[in-house]
């Protein structure tokens, strides 16, 4: 006989498994929905689910604990996560965070005594142009102010259901500041697909190759070559995957594309399916963009109803293709294409060993074309315009236009579309930035440039970018910028390989040591050594680029570091007085007698 608890799990899981299927490949989606029932994943619910899926419970625990948004312990009825990108900090998220903790009587990172609420920070939620931002139970809230935070705290105290909160809290603006061919696209859904069908698979691949289109996710691999490789690879099935796991701090262009040009994204995926011979497509949507799920599902349904998806698309016999949306659960590493595929398969998002590459051994070890949201849009435009016209935009090696996500110190943050080859200075002028000290191009894993480099141009020839463009004026402390990025990498390292798992934490310790006033020249030299180890031995790009924020800011803004250093060559990180902090907290004392006197002061 089932006990009450088991009944609760059965009531929750039966419809979920009925809809998603009792297959471990859907584990991540199942866990997301199971958590929606209980606010976390109770231990015995995992045991119950393991039986239903016929997999060891250790595997479920292993997967669940990998993702930041899944919780194995009770985490409060309201789970508040403050976006903690440097742009949120610059917009003042720290005082807001403290005020909220104070008002709700809860410590950062802990659950309140009454189990009502937990407050913590999370990596950039992609709202940099309308921050400070937060997630409450996975729902994005933008434009936080002291007043808004106070209202939210009150709503939580009153246990007001999230659905009854003011809609304005959840309003997300597009902030399109400069349009172009892509953002200005007004083609009817299906129009490009008709052109593509008339061309046929071979000519689609040829046209994409001739357009010189390169991937917009940052790495810039030629899209035509990828599609051709996928098309030619042997497999029982072929797959198309849209990487909408837009996790690089400072990037939010895919959010705007999925809001304003979703049809074009799906059109691009569908013509890719035609080109590579795929019947199933996936959109891997980052968990932070959960609010986009319903509108996107509605658009997919409309496309099915218009015969733009499904069987015999547009009457073409045998052209079957459909798209599923898979939600992430808070793991930056899943933006790496092989980690993304692992996550799609319901596993931990650990990057695979390569070769083989996804193009031959991707989803379920079958040939898979994984492309960025913007790449699918650009591919659709290239088919619509023809390769020659597409190639005429931009530069020789960087054809077409590029969406730039501008945030930070400027009066007009938002989305800007430029032909490749635009200079950093021109973008700064357009967004109204003044007294600019530095720009972080393409996020923490990209490059930080100073004023003497503002004439450099965005494009694969000079400054490749996935789109992030964070502006810092001369009031900013670039050491703190780098420290924020270093914390980000340490938080997001998947932990698979030794150098990245340990190295990113060592780097974080070093930056914190310098911030605490204990740093020395020795520590700066150690960063360079660490960089060499991470560059040479890391499993994937996360570890290889993790030291960049420090190295780049050291190059341009060394005084920001040196002003914090002790003149000694070495200084232990251990702080005797700091070690008493816990005792002070427990006794509620903070008077002079509760502090160790420094020798020089005594």
């Amino acid at each position, binding site marked *: 006989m089932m006990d009450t608890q088991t009944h609760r799990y059965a009531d929750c899981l039966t419809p979920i498994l009925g809809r998603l299927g009792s297959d471990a490949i859907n584990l991540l989606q199942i866990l997301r929905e199971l958590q929606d029932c209980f606010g976390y994943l109770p231990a015995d619910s995992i045991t119950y689910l393991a039986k239903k899926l016929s997999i060891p419970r250790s595997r479920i625990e292993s997967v669940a604990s990998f993702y930041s948004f899944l919780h194995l312990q009770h985490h409060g009825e309201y789970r508040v996560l403050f976006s903690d990108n440097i742009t949120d900090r610059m917009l003042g998220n720290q005082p807001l965070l403290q005020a909220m903790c104070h008002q709700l009587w809860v410590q950062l990172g802990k659950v309140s005594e009454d189990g009502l609420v937990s407050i913590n920070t999370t990596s950039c939620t992609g709202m940099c142009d309308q921050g400070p931002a937060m997630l409450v139970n996975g729902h994005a809230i933008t434009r936080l102010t002291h007043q808004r935070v106070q209202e939210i705290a009150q709503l939580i105290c009153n246990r007001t259901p999230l659905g009854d909160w003011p809609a304005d809290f959840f309003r997300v603006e597009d902030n399109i500041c400069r349009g172009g061919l892509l953002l200005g696209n007004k083609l009817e859904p299906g129009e490009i697909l008709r052109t593509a069908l008339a061309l046929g698979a071979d000519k689609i691949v040829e046209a994409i190759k001739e357009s010189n289109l390169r991937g917009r996710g940052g790495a810039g691999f030629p899209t035509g070559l990828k599609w051709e490789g996928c098309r030619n690879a042997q497999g029982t099935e072929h797959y198309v995957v849209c990487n909408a796991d837009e996790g690089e701090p400072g990037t939010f262009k895919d959010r705007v594309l999925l809001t304003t040009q979703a049809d074009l994204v799906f059109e691009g995926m569908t013509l890719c399916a035609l080109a590579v011979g795929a019947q199933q497509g996936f959109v891997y949507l980052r968990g932070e963009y959960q609010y986009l799920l319903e509108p996107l599902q509605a658009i997919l349904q409309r496309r099915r109803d218009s015969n733009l998806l499904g069987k015999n698309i547009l009457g073409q016999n045998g052209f079957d293709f459909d798209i599923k949306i898979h939600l992430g659960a808070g793991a930056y590493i899943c933006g790496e294409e092989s980690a993304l595929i692992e996550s799609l398969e319901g596993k931990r998002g650990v990057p695979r060993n390569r070769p083989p590459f996804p193009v031959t*051994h991707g989803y379920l070890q079958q040939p898979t074309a994984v492309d960025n949201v913007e790449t699918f849009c650009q591919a659709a435009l290239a088919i619509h315009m023809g390769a020659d016209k597409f190639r005429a935009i931009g530069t020789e090696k960087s054809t077409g236009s590029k969406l730039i996500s501008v945030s930070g110190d400027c009066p007009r943050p938002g989305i800007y579309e430029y032909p490749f080859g635009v200079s950093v200075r021109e973008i700064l002028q357009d967004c109204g930035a003044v007294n600019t000290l530095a720009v972080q191009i393409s996020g923490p894993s990209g490059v930080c440039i100073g004023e003497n480099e503002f004439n450099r141009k965005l494009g694969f020839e000079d400054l490749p970018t996935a789109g992030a463009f964070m502006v810092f004026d001369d009031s900013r402390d670039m050491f703190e910028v780098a420290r924020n990025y270093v914390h980000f990498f340490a938080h997001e390292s998947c932990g698979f390989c030794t150098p990245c798992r340990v190295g990113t934490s060592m780097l974080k310790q070093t930056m914190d040591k310098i911030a605490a006033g204990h740093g020395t020249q020795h520590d700066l030299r150690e960063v360079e050594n660490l960089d060499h180890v991470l560059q040479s*031995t890391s499993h994937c790009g996360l570890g290889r680029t993790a030291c960049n924020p420090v190295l780049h800011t050291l190059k341009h803004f060394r005084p920001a570091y040196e002003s914090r250093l002790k003149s000694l060559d070495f200084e232990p990180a251990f702080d005797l007085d700091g070690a008493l902090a816990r005792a002070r907290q427990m006794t509620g004392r903070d008077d002079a007698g509760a502090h160790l006197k420094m020798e020089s002061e005594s």
Partner: protein
Amino acid sequence: MSDTFQLDGKTIPFESGQTVLQAALAADSYIPHLCYHPEFKPHGSCKLCTVKVNGRTAASCTMPAEAGLNVESDIEELNALRRTLVQMLFAEGNHFCPSCEKSGNCVLQALGYDLEVHTAGFRHMYPDRPLDASHPDILLDFNRCILCELCVRASGEVDGKNVFALAGRGITKHLIVNAESGLLADTNIALTDKAMDVCPVGVILRKGVGFSQPIGERRYDKSPIRAQALQDAPREADNKGGCDACEDAP
């Protein structure tokens, strides 16, 4: 006739499907390694076996062997990297060799000696990792876990039990067992399991036998790991074909 590649100037023959490390070990050439075990599919997480292949660094345990490769391994640049990786593993966990019953039989310790790791190099993290002594015959001391996943692979691939798994992410990654209580006593592990014999450090220990072989007379007390590691490697090349390095590849 099989193809060959060059390793530190020596010609190494290989069969299709072998990785650089597998071919090297089969040809009596030692490359330092830690998470690799000849009986399991290599996965390349510890990175100790990093070599330079045609000038670029790569983990040799997962790098498919190819004809004509120029592989460098025993050079100071790479040994310096390996030294740092060993230091990282020591700093990450709680490794107190003098009181550890695995001392002398520990691969991490043996590699430390062999690679001449003379200093800590990093600030120790001193993580809080409680023991699991729940099982009557087996002790788990997580303090020494280096996350090589050998027990995970052995229990899954050989024992078919999945007693062990890794949980968490990044620096909080840790070993767990397959039980709702989180305790080893509530799993179906047996002393005869393969998973009991693969831990390179002192995490999975049999109770009651700790010091029956005195420290000083143990495996790596007698001669360094580089002189003994080849005994662990299969002498016959794998003739199954296919790419062993490719996770789940057909």
